[in-house]
Structures are given as structure tokens and as C-alpha cells.
């Protein structure tokens, strides 16, 4: 493909009479009275199969993915997606199951769901679980709705949710969707929750404190027992955002450290593909006192039979979606956990933390660190020093990284760190890959000093150069403007 030429839009490849033959032709509209019919047919592309395939294959080749190269996007846990899981998820027997089949005809499926739930509870140290949520943010929403239902059942829903200033944007957005006010806690100098600040803000109006542990700086909140004590003493709940679960498996269970609720991001920790932005899955595990509020149905077992359990219907928050969950995603996570076993999951966290620490030490001398504390599976550095010295900012550095076949880190997050670069290599990178990354970083920092102009213009070797985002926002074009008229 000529890199200077755009891949056409599929609509620009359209010509009348070119469609393939997939379904027997039918043009009979006689069953439907004409006043119900649309005036004109939709203008979908008319392109033969081979050209459709080529189009999407060519497009796909413009992407960077985990299978192509290192993808150390902080907070996203871009680990390898095992192929055996993909194979199983494509078994015809799974694709053809209707969600409203009778339970007796899907015992094997319910078994998978039940056992996955049991495994996730064991891994997190919790007592009950819902597999419904379709993503981490959806899990958060489920969790905070349950939190509200819990407090309401005790006579008072309370009014606010506390989040640290290093939190993911989904945390405050979720709290607001549940009718809560959000209060942000300023982190202390080492980047963790400040006990005094928490004490001052924790009162009986607070429904819950939402945190990740390790936090978004990759630092373990080692005062978690005190935090738990402070929150619970005032009757609040402690919510675990599982985005960073990859750091602690085999070492720490949220359920043993005072958390009342945990959501998992199966597409992060448990290797299900990120799919250019989902579908993921965000199961939520809870302690006993929250079980009555779980979305219905949950999956249960009598020992020899599996069934959908609607028994908490009266107290439940309801349902978070139609049907039961993203089954094909849940299946992949189930297989991943069993392939690893507990020993494998522990090893996963160990290597994730080892890789992150190794890479951090290799590159951090170029930057400033927001905290001197030990970090786990990811780390955050600030390019503020480089910016002051050379004018090259975090965006420039991350764009230049793309030229070397590596994905950029998460940038400008967490918000409390200026010019932040957030790096999470995951466990599935070799030492050679990490050394290469460090080498690239040295090169880029040297370029920043010798030829900053080149960095402002980076990347140079990608399918497109920096897009004009101002234009995209001020003159939004959100669909193909003129579609070829369909000739009848």
C-alpha cells in the first residue's frame, strides 16, 4: 500500500450491482402496509466481498496492537491475549446459544459462569458476585448503585462519595450518575491517601471511598488498614477499583483488607482482548452484607445443577443490562484463570511488577518522579524537566515513541502529575523488549536536546502524522458527507 494515499472510505468504493450473494434475494414488501415503509432505501455500500475484505484488512494494518509490539499503556494492562481463548470463543456451540434457552439445555454454560464467579471471589476474597457488567465503568456503576441501596436499606442513602485526586475519571462520573456528590481528597506528598485529610472528610454523609490499590501512581496504599477502619467507623463502604489488580494477585486480596466491593476488568487483568475499545467485562464481587443488592439473576448451584438465582429480586438494584453478561468475554477469562491456576496468577503479578520496576529504573533518570515510594505494576514519571529544558513535552515524546513500533504510554494522567507519562509494561514483555524501550527513550531524550523541532513534528513513520484535532472538534465531521446515490 502506498503510505501517501488514503485508504478510501468503503462508500467511495461503492458501485451499483457489486454486492455479494449471502442471502437469497427477497424484495417482497407485501406483508407490511406501505405507510410503515421507509421512503428511500438506506445508502449502504455496494462492494464485492473480496474488495470488502481487502478494505478492512488494509485498514487493520494501520493499527498497533499487542500482537504487533509492546503496548505499555498505563492503567490499561495491555497484556498478550492467549490464542486458545480466541479459539474457544469461536466454537460454534457457544455462538449459537440463545439467551432464553431453558436452563436444562445450558448446564455447561451455567457451570462456566458459576465457576468463574467462584474463582473471582477466591482471588479477591469476597462472598458474592455479579457477572453482568459489560466494562469496568459499568461495574463501578453497579457497585455504587449497590452502595446506595445498602445505605438506603439502613435508612439513609447518604450524600457523597470520596475519591482521591489521583482517581480514574470514571469514579467521579459514576458517583454522579448514582446521585452522589463527589468529594476529592488531596493526596499527600508521597502520592497516597493522606490519613488526616481522610479523617477530616470522613463523616456520616459519606457513602463510600473509592480507591485503587496500588493507586494510579502504582503505589501501594500501605495504610489501607487504617483507611478501612476510618471509613467503616463512620458506616461508609470501601470500594476497590480493580483496574490495577494485575499488581497484587497472589499477594493481597481486597476482601482481606477491608474492601466491601471490588470490580474486575477482565480485559485488563484476565487477558481478554481489548478489541479496539471493548467489549470487556466488569464483574463486581461483594462481601456478604452487599449480596442482597446484587443485580439479578446471579448464577448459583445446588451441587449437581446450575441455575439462575432470582431470590434477591426484592432487594436487588435490578438489572444492569439485558440477559446475563458478555458471555464470550467471561469465557475467555475463565480459561485464562484455569490455564494459570493460582500459582500462575501469582507469577503473573510478580513478573508484571518486576518488569515495571526494571523499566522504571532504566528510564527514570531522564525524568522526575512524582513520588519516591516503591511502585508496583506501573509507574508515573513527569517530563516537566525536559519541557523546561528543551520545550519538548510529554505529547512530543509519546508521539516519537510511535516511530519505533512501540505504543505510547498513557499521558497527562493522573491529573495530579504535570506532564505525566504512565507506563505499564505488563508481565508479557521480555527483558529484551524492555531494554529496547529504554534504549529508545535515551535516544528520544537525546533528540529533545539536539533537535527538538523534529520531536514537535513527530511521529514521522506512522500511517498518518499528527491529526488536526482542533479542526475535528470545531468543525465536527462525524460521518461520510456525501454518499453515492443508489441507482434503482
Amino acid at each position, binding site marked *: 500500500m502506498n503510505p501517501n494515499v488514503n485508504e478510501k472510505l468503503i462508500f467511495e468504493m461503492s458501485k451499483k450491482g457489486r454486492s*455479494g450473494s449471502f442471502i437469497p434475494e427477497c424484495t417482497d414488501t407485501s406483508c407490511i402496509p406501505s405507510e410503515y415503509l421507509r421512503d428511500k432505501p438506506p445508502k449502504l455500500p455496494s462492494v464485492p466481498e473480496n474488495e470488502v475484505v481487502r478494505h*478492512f484488512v488494509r485498514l487493520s494494518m494501520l493499527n498497533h496492537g499487542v500482537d504487533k509490539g509492546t503496548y505499555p499503556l498505563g492503567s490499561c494492562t495491555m497484556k498478550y491475549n492467549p490464542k486458545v481463548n480466541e479459539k474457544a470463543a469461536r466454537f460454534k456451540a457457544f455462538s449459537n446459544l440463545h439467551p432464553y434457552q431453558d436452563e436444562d439445555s*445450558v448446564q455447561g454454560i451455567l457451570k462456566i459462569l458459576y465457576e468463574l464467579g467462584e474463582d473471582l471471589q477466591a482471588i479477591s476474597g469476597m462472598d458474592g458476585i455479579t457477572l453482568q457488567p459489560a466494562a469496568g465503568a459499568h461495574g463501578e456503576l453497579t457497585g455504587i448503585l449497590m452502595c446506595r441501596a445498602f445505605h438506603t436499606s439502613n435508612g439513609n442513602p447518604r450524600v457523597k462519595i470520596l475519591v482521591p485526586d489521583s482517581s480514574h475519571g470514571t469514579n467521579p462520573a459514576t458517583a454522579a*450518575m448514582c446521585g452522589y456528590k463527589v468529594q476529592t481528597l488531596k493526596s499527600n506528598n508521597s502520592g497516597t491517601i493522606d490519613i488526616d485529610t481522610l479523617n477530616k472528610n470522613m463523616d456520616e454523609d459519606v457513602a463510600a471511598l473509592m480507591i485503587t490499590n496500588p493507586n494510579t501512581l502504582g503505589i501501594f496504599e500501605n495504610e489501607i488498614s487504617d483507611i478501612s477502619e476510618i471509613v467503616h467507623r463512620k458506616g461508609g463502604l470501601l470500594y476497590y477499583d480493580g483496574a490495577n489488580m494485575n499488581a497484587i494477585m497472589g499477594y493481597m*486480596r481486597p476482601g482481606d483488607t477491608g474492601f466491601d466491593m471490588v470490580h474486575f476488568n477482565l480485559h485488563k487483568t484476565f487477558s481478554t482482548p*481489548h478489541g479496539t475499545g471493548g467489549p470487556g467485562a466488569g464483574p463486581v464481587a461483594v462481601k456478604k452484607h452487599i449480596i442482597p443488592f446484587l443485580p439479578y439473576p446471579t448464577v448459583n448451584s445446588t451441587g449437581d445443577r446450575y441455575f439462575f438465582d432470582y431470590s434477591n429480586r426484592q432487594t436487588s438494584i435490578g438489572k444492569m443490562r439485558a*440477559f446475563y453478561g458478555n458471555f464470550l468475554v467471561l469465557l475467555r477469562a475463565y480459561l485464562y484463570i484455569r*490455564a494459570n491456576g493460582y500459582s500462575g496468577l501469582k507469577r503473573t503479578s510478580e513478573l508484571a511488577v518486576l518488569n515495571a520496576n526494571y523499566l522504571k529504573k532504566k528510564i527514570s533518570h531522564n525524568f522526575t518522579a512524582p513520588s519516591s515510594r516503591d511502585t508496583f505494576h506501573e509507574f508515573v514519571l513527569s517530563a516537566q524537566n525536559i519541557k523546561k529544558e528543551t520545550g519538548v513535552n510529554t505529547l512530543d515524546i509519546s*508521539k516519537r515513541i510511535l516511530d519505533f513500533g512501540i505504543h505510547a504510554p498513557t499521558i497527562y494522567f493522573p491529573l495530579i502529575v504535570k506532564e505525566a507519562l504512565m507506563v505499564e509494561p505488563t508481565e508479557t514483555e521480555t527483558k529484551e523488549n524492555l531494554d529496547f524501550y529504554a534504549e529508545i527513550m535515551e535516544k528520544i531524550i537525546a533528540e529533545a536536546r539536539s533537535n527538538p523541532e523534529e520531536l514537535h513534528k513527530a511521529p514521522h513513520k506512522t500511517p498518518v502524522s499528527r491529526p488536526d484535532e482542533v479542526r475535528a472538534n470545531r468543525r465536527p465531521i462525524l460521518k461520510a458527507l456525501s454518499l453515492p446515490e443508489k441507482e434503482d
Partner: protein
Amino acid sequence: MPYFDHSDNDVKEMLKYLGKNKVEELFFSIPQELVIKTPPIITGPLSEQELLSSIEDTLEDATTYKEIFRGAGAYRHFIPAAVDEISSRQEYYTAYTPYQPEVSQGSLQTMFEYQTMMSELTGLPVANASMYDGASATAEAALMAWHFNRRNKVIISGGVHPEYLTVLNTYLKNTGIKIEMLPLKEGTVDLQKLSAIDMSDVSSVIIQNPNFLGFLEKMKDIKKQSGNAVLIYVTNETHSLAVLQTPAEAGASICCGDAQSFGQPLAFGGPYLGFITCSEEFLHLLPGRIIGATYDHHGKRAFVMALAAREQHIRRERATSNICSNHAMSAVRAAVYLSLLGTDGLKSAALLSVKRAHELKEALSTLKNVEFIEKDKPFFNEFSAKLKINDRVFSESLQKHSILGPLELSRFNSSFKNYYLFTATEMNGRAGTELLVEAVKEASL
């Protein structure tokens, strides 16, 4: 550890570089009393061979049917082989949200094309890059309308999928928005009752078309009775969009639902493809990712995530939704599906489904133990009927022929005992139809 491991020597070297002796030392900031003492018991590790054979064993306890006459928001349509082929490409499925557009043009352009197709099908100018599923998309659409006019009442038709209604209740519970149910009359929206509602404090009117029982709604008449409340058009059989009056023509300003029919397998309920399209005035309230076209620095066409300031990572507690990851891969499948079928193919699939359903109804109408709800009202590819049958006999004969029969509506409402929802698509052949009709006949009381 499967899939990946370091060599012992690499681990040793890396630890040495860090000045550590053991990996455990990296975890020392976890207070000792919190460290797991007894590892919990979970199955594994299993080799790939064991894993596959165990899953194959499990599959023996899952029945797949040759003929499926069940829909209710999850439809078995034909999926061209090329859809699976493209969606199996690691270049798509191992990428993430296109934060770096320079190395994500494939995902971005594909989603831009998907948005164009959804806009074209619904007639509404703006589409997002996907939601989770139809039920949560409907709830988010109601929230959009509420953010738009800040009125505190939602009218929802009794013809909306009952699970969607449950989800709407869950989402809206703490917003102060009141949900008022508008029961169906003779299978469709009760226009008289609708016209009697004072619309001045109604935020949105939510109507599913074709409705849950399969009937077509008179959308333009509904629009007339909805005052200046936002009309939200819900559909979970998106094939209908190829044939029916578009939501835009009907006067809806938001359309949402599930596009599972566009190339997503049944897969026991997920992942499916939630979608929202809307008129321009809702653009800045639309949740989720939106892809826009622009140019790169060399003047080459390029695509980016646009209007990000709507979203939670920027707007935090002021965002209209917390959605971040969506169902992008399902949108990729839909884009490929719609590109392959084109207008004529999609219309054929839709009209064949309609035809098969009408043939089935016709055949059932000769039986004495079948009583249709509203015999003469137009429907799409689903219809409901009361069956006077012996359940056991019915299910045994269906089982014998590997047929997944119609859905018992008592599942949602006990007053619907003996009522069934029949569904057909282009996948149902004449032979299957005959066997189903025979089974209904045989089970007659």
C-alpha cells in the same frame, strides 16, 4: 506460567539490576499482616490440551438447535464467513481505544464508517461508536433527554422489552426521574391514553418499534401526541431499519437499541452491540466515543476521537455518563456485515425474515389450538399467540426435531400464562416451519 515467562537468568539479572535478591522483595510495601498466607484454591494450571478438552466436555452440556424460533431481543441471522475472518484479525482485537490516532487509523476509520451506516439506517445525523447493549443504551438515551430538557418524567411504552424497562429503572432510580408506564392496548401503543398525558413535564417518550410483541407502531401518530417531549425510538431488531420508516422520518430525535442482528452471534446474550444515534442538538450530550474526520499535518485525511470533553476522563463528575470502554469490536463486526450485505442484502435478510414469520403465522392460523393476539395488526418478524397445549408434549417434540420453540411470555409476567412469542428470520426454512406447526398441533389439549 503459560503464554509467557522470563528465563531464570533474566529474572536474576533484572533483580540484580534492582538491587534485590528475590521477587518477593518487590512486594515489601504490602504490610506483612495483609499478605496472603494460605493461597485460595482454584482449578489449574492446565495445559492448553487439558484446557481445550475440559471445555469440550463442558460443551456436551449445552444444546444447540438446528431451528430457532426464539428472538425477543436476540436474533439468529446469517453471518457471512468474512465477518468472522475480519474480526479474528489481531490487528483489530489486540488494539485498544484509539488514544494515539497515528497508529489507530484502522479502528478509527472502521468506526467512522460504522457511524455513517448507523446514521444512514436511522436517518439521524449523529451516531456514536457503540454502547454496551440495547438495554443500557436505552437508559443512557433517557438520561440524554433529561440532561437536555431537565424534565423529570419519562413515559415508556409497555411494548418496550421488559428487561430494558428493568434496566431503565435501575439506571434512573437515583436521579429523581419518574418512570410512567404506558400499557399497550390491543398490542400497540394506546394513542388515546398517550394524548391524555400532559406533556409539559415529560422529558422523553420511549417507544420500541417493532414492539416487544412484534407489532409495528404508528410512530408518526405517537410523535404527534408527544408534544415537545423527546421521542426516543428503541429497536432491537435492527434489520427493520432497512425496511421501515426511519426513526427520523417518524419524528424521533434519538434512536437507540441493540444492533446484535448486524453480525453478532447469539452467544448466550453477549457481547452484543448497543447503539445511539441522534439529532444534532444532542451532540454534546451523547455518551461514549465519537469518531470524527480531519486532516493530518501533511493534509492527508485522518480520523480521531472527537468531542472528548463530553467524556468522563475530562468532565469527571459533570459527565452525562461514565462509559469509557464500549463495544467497539462489535461495531467492527457490524461495519463488515453491513459492507458485505449492502442495501439489497440487508433488505433481503429483513424481508425474508418478515416473510418467514408471516408464513409461520399463516400456517399456525389453520390450527384450532392457536389464538393470536390481534390477528390483523401488521407485524415484523415476531408475533404472539395463546397456545392451548400440553407443555410436556410440546417440548418433547421440539426437542426431538432440534427446534428451539417460541418464548413463553409468562417468563416476564405471570398473567401471560400460555402466551408465546414466535420469531422467524431468514435462517428458518420451510421444513423447520412445518415441524414447528406439527409440534403445536400434536401438543393440542
